[in-house]
């Protein structure tokens, strides 16, 4: 319900106050993590539990760097996520192009085959997939972390929707000009579909960067761990140092939060693609 803003001023102030309070409440766990990351362990142990650091310190961040190879974890996660994003963009563009511009028998059937992968939870196939990666000798490698995710049915579906918006006349004109099928994809379809490609990219990056189960299974060496599995190790240390854990949490969450702020529009388009228009 889009309400009007021409109200009494105090009501408007009340609305803002409510919004501010609720926002802080929803984001509270995150804000608390940020706050704790600047507290000394002795301050965290005081009662009642503190909310804001009395004497903010950066020590925890230094200690994270000394305790776990977090730089390496970030590097691993960025490499794997980038490879997945590029791979998904390529495979999904090609497939979406076939499903939108090319006409061939069996297209419908193949499209349903693509969509059917959405019904298969990754966790239900994780045992054979683990065995595949192991038998390829890909445990503790970037390819073991990335290759299974190089295709995306959701992304293909999203790009197909975008490609279908492109006027058919452009295709006909390009054919008359003698452009090949592939050149039309590269020179016309891709440049016209930047927003949708952005959505697929951000989505792919976030979901890969935030993975936990798969990297936990296929990496054993410390140096091949990704960020999520890496910081989780802090939880299983003998003494839980909360300042340290929260500093790690902030370092790991920072890139995704930055992505949220920068790519919010693309992200929202992706999330609502399935829900709003059936």
């Amino acid at each position, binding site marked *: *319900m889009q*309400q*009007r*803003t021409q109200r009494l001023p105090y009501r*408007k102030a009340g609305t*803002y106050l409510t*919004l501010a309070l*609720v*926002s*802080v409440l*929803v984001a509270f*766990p*995150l804000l*608390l*993590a940020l706050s704790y990351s600047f507290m000394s362990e002795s301050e965290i142990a005081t*009662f009642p539990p503190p909310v804001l650091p009395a004497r903010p310190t950066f020590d925890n961040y230094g200690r994270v760097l000394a305790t776990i190879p977090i730089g390496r974890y970030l590097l691993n996660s960025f490499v794997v996520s980038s490879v997945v994003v590029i791979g998904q963009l390529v*495979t999904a563009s*090609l*497939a979406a192009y076939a499903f939108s511009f*090319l*006409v*061939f*028998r069996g297209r419908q059937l*193949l499209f349903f085959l693509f969509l059917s*992968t959405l*019904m*298969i*939870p990754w*966790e*239900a*196939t*994780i*045992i*054979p*997939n683990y*065995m*595949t990666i192991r038998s390829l000798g890909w445990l503790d490698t970037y390819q073991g972390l990335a290759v*299974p995710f*190089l*295709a995306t049915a959701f992304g293909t579906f999203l790009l197909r929707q975008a490609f279908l918006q492109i006027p058919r006349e452009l295709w006909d004109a390009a054919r008359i000009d003698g452009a090949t099928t592939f050149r039309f994809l590269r020179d016309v379809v891709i440049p016209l579909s930047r927003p949708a490609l952005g959505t697929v990219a951000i989505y792919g990056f*976030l979901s890969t960067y*935030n993975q*936990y*189960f798969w990297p*936990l*299974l296929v990496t054993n060496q410390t140096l091949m761990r990704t960020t*999520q599995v890496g910081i*989780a190790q802090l939880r299983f240390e003998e003494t839980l140092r*909360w300042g340290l854990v*929260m500093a790690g*949490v902030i370092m*790991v*969450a920072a890139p995704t939060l930055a992505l949220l*702020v920068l790519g919010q529009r693309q992200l929202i388009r992706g*999330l*609502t693609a*399935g*829900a*709003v228009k*059936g």
Partner: protein
Amino acid sequence: MRWTRRDLRSLGVGLVYLAPALFIFVVFVFIPLGRTFYLSLFHTRVTGATSSFAGLDHYIDLLTSETFRSGLTATGLFAVYTVPIGIILGLVLAVLLNQRLRAINVFRTMMASTIAISAAVGALIWLLLFSPSLGLLNYVLSLVGIRGPEWLIQPTIAIIAVSITTIWLTLGTNIIVLLAGLQGIPEEIYEAARLDGARGARMFTRITVPMVSPSLFFLLVVDTIAVLQAFTQIHLLTRGGPVDATRTIVYGIYLDAFQNFQFGFASAESVVLFTLVLVLTIIQFRFVERRVHYQ
């Protein structure tokens, strides 16, 4: 219908474009799904290699297994605690955010921030909040005179703790989806209802809720599937315990396959998981199809 040369040629061109994605799907989705079914019919060695044919033994074991039945219960409770509350909370916040105000985007970003938060990060933060000695949660409860429980130690409470964490993690997505649904409601409908004298709560239950019902239904299915697949928060908060209280189907698969090395049995559990998700997805597709016809 006969295949002409041209049919084959155009199919060939199409397949060239589909090949990269299709290859990944065949190797990492379709064949593994088949292998999951296959493995579920065999006894396996610790390496995962099949040793002897088991027939339906694993499935019979599942049906009679106390652990698996309690796993189904845990999964069901997890869904019941998480999904409805998560959606209702998301709707309330989405309505709050659906106002034409200056700087509303700042609030939207803040409330939707959990979209970007990984389950591992979320679980670690909530682990601190649930902490009996240092946690803020029980301290805040004590301020209003409630003696907070030992969140991760009492079996009946641990699944609630996992659910609270999950509600928070999915809140961002729920808000965004419902906000988009709310923005799709034409202003004229509200105008008409207002002329008919509808206000406040009545407007909400009679207009808003029915109009966003497609989004609500979408989230009901998607959030339930997400709960069925949840692993990280359980691994970091409770490790399936105490006494299997949070050993959901997925966590059972992890324990049986990768801790106990019973790959055949764990594959049978995977088949159950697959079936559940399949049924939910079919329900959703059916529903979406019907809506399209109505429009």
